[in-house]
């Protein structure tokens, strides 16, 4: 059933303009990368370049893109009685939530891949020395994706219950703006869902980093909490 729901969601979102938005954040990070000058005589240019490029993507735009993706996948349901028809189909509501969750997660994953691709492209374009630290870069990119799980669960839930497209987006803007401050706080950095992707995309042992284990525990706990609240609330909500 979840498979058919995902297929149905994909059919519905395929013809929206959401695909164009997948490029915004990686391209912006690419521009930052292009204009940045690397300090001379550093040991690993590629690694340093990643640390320069990734905050542009993960600190501000990634959390916002998640709310835009969530908004897109719910927008056509809020217009013209979509929810009522969807929920009067023989489908479980928690499965609907899961299917939409998987689509937003998929879009976020593509977004991360695009970032990775542009990182390589710009890096080679600038003629960086040495080899790409593949393991490090992939770990950070994949880790950043894992760190978006709590935020996806929360934002998707809000997008499902708020009929306005702008409302969840505005809330996310408000809560993303303090990211730079939160990132500097050792107490809040691991537990703040809007900054978790950024922290996860920073290399271990550098500034802003958090011990991997405690970070994963914080992300896991937040994800389970938001997902459960969202799923249960959608289940009993009147439409």
């Amino acid at each position, binding site marked *: 059933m979840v498979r*058919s*729901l995902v*297929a*149905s969601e994909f*059919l*519905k979102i395929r*013809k*929206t303009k959401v695909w164009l938005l997948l490029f915004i954040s990686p391209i912006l990070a690419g521009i930052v990368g292009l204009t940045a000058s690397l300090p001379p005589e550093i040991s690993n240019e590629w690694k340093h370049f990643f640390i320069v490029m990734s905050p542009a993507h993960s600190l501000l735009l990634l959390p916002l893109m998640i709310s835009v993706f969530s908004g897109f996948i719910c927008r*056509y349901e809020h*217009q*013209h*009685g*979509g929810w*009522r*028809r969807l*929920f*009067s*189909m*023989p*489908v*479980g509501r928690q499965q609907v939530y899961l299917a939409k969750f998987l689509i937003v997660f998929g879009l976020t994953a593509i977004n991360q891949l695009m970032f990775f691709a542009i990182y390589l492209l710009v890096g080679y374009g600038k003629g960086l020395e040495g080899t790409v630290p593949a393991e490090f870069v992939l770990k950070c990119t994949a880790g950043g994706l894992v760190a978006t799980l709590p935020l996806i669960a929360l934002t998707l839930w809000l997008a499902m219950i708020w009929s306005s497209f702008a409302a969840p987006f505005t809330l996310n803007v408000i809560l993303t703006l303090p990211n730079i401050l939160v990132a500097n706080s050792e107490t809040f950095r691991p537990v703040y869902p809007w900054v978790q992707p950024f922290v996860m995309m920073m290399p271990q042992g550098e500034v802003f980093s958090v011990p991997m284990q405690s970070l994963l525990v914080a992300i896991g706990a937040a994800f389970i909490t938001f997902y459960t609240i969202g799923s249960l609330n959608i289940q*009993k909500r*009147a*439409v």
Partner: protein
Amino acid sequence: MSETIIATKGLLKTFRKTNAVDRVDITVEKGEIYGFLGPNGAGKTTTIRMLLGLMKPSGGSIKMFNKDLKSHRIEILKRVGSLVESPSYYEHLTGRENLEALRKLLQVPKSRIDHVLSIVRLTKDSDRAVKEYSLGMKQRLGIASALLGEPELLILDEPTNGLDPSGIHEIRELIKSMPEEYGITVMISSHLLSEIDQMASKVGIISKGTMIYEDSIEKLRSRARPQIRMRVGNGSAAKSTLLSSGYVVEHDEEYIYVEEGSDEYISGLTATLVHQRIPVYRIEEQRQSLEDIFLDLTNDGGEANASYSAS
């Protein structure tokens, strides 16, 4: 023996201490077209939302196909096609894509799409985006979606709302054919009795959340009482003359109203007036239309005289 498709007992929905739906019992038998009537805001849509599991009742029970809706929701919904506060559609998709998005969930063969498109005569326009559709076409697409899963029961909430007369006619003919051609039981709501009159075999009338009538439409029609109206020269004088002669009448300005309409009664009454030299200009029989009966029922019988019309 007929099979009961929908049976609600004491169905209740409370919003902030007021009962939007107040202990409603509905019985829909297989093969019926059940007209669910009531003025706007009477609780029709709320009831239908509960029947489709979109909203949880505050009390009472819902059985469909002899199964409890609460514990068999998905199983029941597989057999139900619906249209709630229509029309619902995804406007960025074509008509065919709209149906395909639902077909994936209903898991019926792809050929169903062409079939339902032809039933509602949208085949030609199926590859156009729905945002270019007229209201009537959107409504027909809604009915096509409702039919897609080969339902045994169709629940349609105001399917003709906002349509022009030819659109209404078309949808009505379509619904009328459902029980015979496809063996589908239909429950259709409306705020206009005249719309349902020509297709429903049974009606349930809801007013202020309470079911005030549930029976065949013929029984409802037999409630129509004929009335005699006379236009006379002096209404109040005529009334007192007639009352003192033992005739039961009402008067309103220059009109005299008589409930009892036998020939002897009316001729005797007329003779009395003529003897008293009160001019009689018109004697006419008035029959309540079905719509008037409906209005009377839903208005608690208020303004009864005003709702009579000349026949």
